[in-house]
C-alpha cells in the first residue's frame, strides 16, 4: 500500500488508460522523434537500471531482506550471455533466458543464509557473495577472459535484422522493462506478493499463519536475481564488451541508491530512482568522479528526511523502521 498506488487507483478509468496509453505511445515513438544516439544510450541505461533497481526492490522492498550485492547477479547474467554467445555461438534469444536462470540459481544459493540471518548480517553475506562472483570471473583465465574481459560480443539478430545501434537496443530494453514491471505487478498483487510483504512486516506472525517464510524468501531472491541476470544478458551485446570491473560493489551500491531514492516497496519507485540517478550522472559529467560524492550525499539526505523514498508512502513500515535499529524485531514472549 503506497501513496503512488493509492493516487493511481483513485483515478477514473479513462484517465488511467490515457496515462498508460500516452506514456507507452511516447516511449515507442521517442526514437523516431529524437533518434540521437547519445539520448538513446541514456534511455537504454535508464531502462536497464529500472529493471536492476526494480528486481532489487523485490528482494529489499517487498520481502524485506537486505541485499546489497545485487551487482553479483547482474554480473552472472552478463558473463553467461557473453560466454554462450562468444564461445559457443548461442543465439541471444536463447542465451537471454538461460542467463536469467543461471542468475536465479546463484540467487538461490545466496538466499540460503537468509534462513538464519537478517538485517546487517545478511547484508554482509550478500556483499561478500557479490564480490566472490566477480572475483571468480576475474580469475577465470581463458574461459572468462580474466582481467581482459570478453570482447566482440556478437549483436543479436531478429530474423535477418541486426540489432546493433542504440536505437534498436532501445526497443529491447523497453520491452524487457515493460515485461518486468507487468509481471512483477501481477505477482505483487497475488498470494505470493502478500506472502513477501507479510515476511517484511512481521515474520513471526507470517509463520504462525502458515507462510513458508524460507521458501518465500528464497523465491524473492531467485525472482530478483533472475531479472538482474536478464538485464545483464541484454547489457552484454549492447555494450559489446564486458569485464569484471563493471560489476564491482560500487555498481551494487549504485543500484541500491536508485531503490532508496525512488522508494522501497513501491513499483514506481525504482523507475523514478533510475531516471533521477541516470540523469544526474549525465548532468554531473563535468565534475567526473566527484559525482559519487553527490550520490552519497543524496542517499544520506533521503535517509534522513524521507526514508521511504520519493514515491513511498509515509505510512509504510519502511518510513519509520529505518531510523530504529534493525534489531528491533520483537517476538512473542521471549527472544528467538
Amino acid at each position: 500500500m503506497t501513496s503512488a498506488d493509492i493516487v493511481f487507483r483513485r483515478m477514473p478509468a479513462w484517465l488511467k488508460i490515457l496515462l498508460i496509453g500516452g506514456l507507452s505511445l511516447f516511449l515507442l515513438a521517442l526514437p523516431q522523434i529524437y533518434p540521437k544516439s547519445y539520448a538513446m544510450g541514456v534511455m537504454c541505461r535508464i531502462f536497464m537500471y529500472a529493471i536492476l533497481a526494480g528486481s532489487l526492490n523485490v528482494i529489499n522492498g517487498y520481502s524485506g531482506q537486505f541485499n546489497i550485492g545485487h551487482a553479483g547477479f547482474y554480473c552472472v547474467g552478463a558473463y553467461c550471455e557473453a560466454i554462450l554467445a562468444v564461445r559457443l555461438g548461442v543465439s541471444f534469444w536463447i542465451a537471454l533466458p538461460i542467463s536469467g536462470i543461471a542468475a536465479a540459481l546463484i540467487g538461490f544459493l545466496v538466499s540460503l543464509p537468509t534462513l538464519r540471518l537478517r538485517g546487517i548480517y545478511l547484508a554482509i553475506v550478500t556483499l561478500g557473495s557479490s564480490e566472490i562472483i566477480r572475483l571468480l570471473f576475474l580469475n577465470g583465465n581463458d574461459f572468462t577472459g580474466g582481467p581482459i574481459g570478453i570482447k566482440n560480443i556478437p549483436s543479436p539478430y531478429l530474423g535477418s535484422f541486426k540489432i546493433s545501434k542504440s536505437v534498436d537496443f532501445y526497443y529491447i530494453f523497453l520491452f524487457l522493462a515493460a515485461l518486468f514491471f507487468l509481471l512483477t505487478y501481477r505477482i505483487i498483487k497475488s498470494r505470493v506478493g502478500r506472502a513477501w510483504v507479510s515476511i517484511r512486516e512481521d515474520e513471526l506472525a507470517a509463520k504462525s499463519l502458515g507462510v513458508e517464510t524460507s521458501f518465500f524468501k528464497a523465491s524473492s531472491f531467485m525472482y530478483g536475481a533472475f531479472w538482474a541476470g536478464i538485464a545483464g544478458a541484454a547489457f552484454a551485446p549492447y555494450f559489446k564488451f564486458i569485464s569484471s570491473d563493471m560489476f564491482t560493489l560500487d555498481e551494487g551500491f549504485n543500484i541500491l541508491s536508485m531503490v532508496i531514492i525512488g522508494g522501497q516497496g513501491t513499483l514506481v519507485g525504482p523507475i523514478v530512482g533510475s531516471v533521477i540517478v541516470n540523469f544526474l550522472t549525465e548532468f554531473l559529467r563535468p565534475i567526473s568522479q566527484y559525482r559519487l560524492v553527490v550520490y552519497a550525499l543524496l542517499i544520506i539526505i533521503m535517509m534522513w528526511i524521507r526514508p521511504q523514498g520519493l514515491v513511498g508512502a509515509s505510512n509504510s513500515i519502511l518510513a519509520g523502521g529505518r531510523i530504529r535499529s534493525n534489531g528491533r524485531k520483537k517476538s512473542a514472549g521471549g527472544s528467538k
Partner: protein
Amino acid sequence: MNTAMLEARDVCQYFGGLKAVEKVNMRIDEGDIFGVIGPNGAGKTTFFNICSGIFKPTAGDILFRGETITGLPSEKIARLGMARTFQNIQLFKFMTVLENVKIGFHIRTKTGVVSAMLRNKQYREDERFANDKGLEVLERVGLMEFKDTLASNLPYGIQRKVEIARALALDPKILLLDEPVAGMNPIETKALSDFIIKLNKDGYTIAVIEHDMKFVMNTCNRILVLNFGQKICEGNPETVRNDKGVNEAYFGKGLIVGGNA
C-alpha cells in the same frame, strides 16, 4: 479413550538455568474452551509458543490430534490446523484489515509465481476465494466497517479482534488465544467472551491464556494453572477455585497454617 485435540506430555523448556516450563502435562479435548492461567512469569506464553512451534521444547512431546508435532516449524503446525494470536498483538500494521485477513488464507490457496504472472484460472479462483471469504470472516467478527483501515490506526480492542479474524481465516481446528482481553474494558471483555463461546459452538476448540479471572471462570470449561513453570492444578473452574495450591500461588500462604486464604 478418544484422541485429544492437543496434548502435552512432560514438556520442559529450559533457557540456560531457567526452567521456564517443567514437566507440564495437558490434555485439550475437542470442543473444549481451555483456559491457561497463572501468575506473571509462570510460563504460560512460553508453553503456548512450544505448542505452536515457535520454541522447540527441551524435553517432552506435543501431540496434535494424535500426531507428534514436537519441533515442527510453526508454519507446518499452522497447516495442520492450529492458529494462534499473540500477547503483544502482531498484526501487519501497515496493511489494511482486509489485507491482513487475506494473508490468513495463505494455506488455503495455491497461487505460485507462474500462475500469478499469467493470471490464470488458479489465480482468479484464489483471489476471489480470499476476497469473498475474507469479507465473510470480517462480517462474522463484526469488523466490516474497518475493512479498508490500516491495522495500526485501529484501537487496541479492535486490533485484537482483527488478529482473531486473521487466525479464523486459517479455518483452524484449534485456536490458541494469548491474552485476548488484555487492555479491554468490561463491556468489550463480555462481548469477546460471548464471541468465543459462539465460536466454540461453531465447532472450534479454543485454548486461551488470560489473567482476567472473571473471564476465565465464565468462559472456560477446563483450566490449567501454571506457577513457576510447573502445573499446580488442572480441572473445571470449580475445582480450580477451591484448590489450595492455586490460592497460595495467587495470594500467598495464609498466616494460620491450614487456614483459608
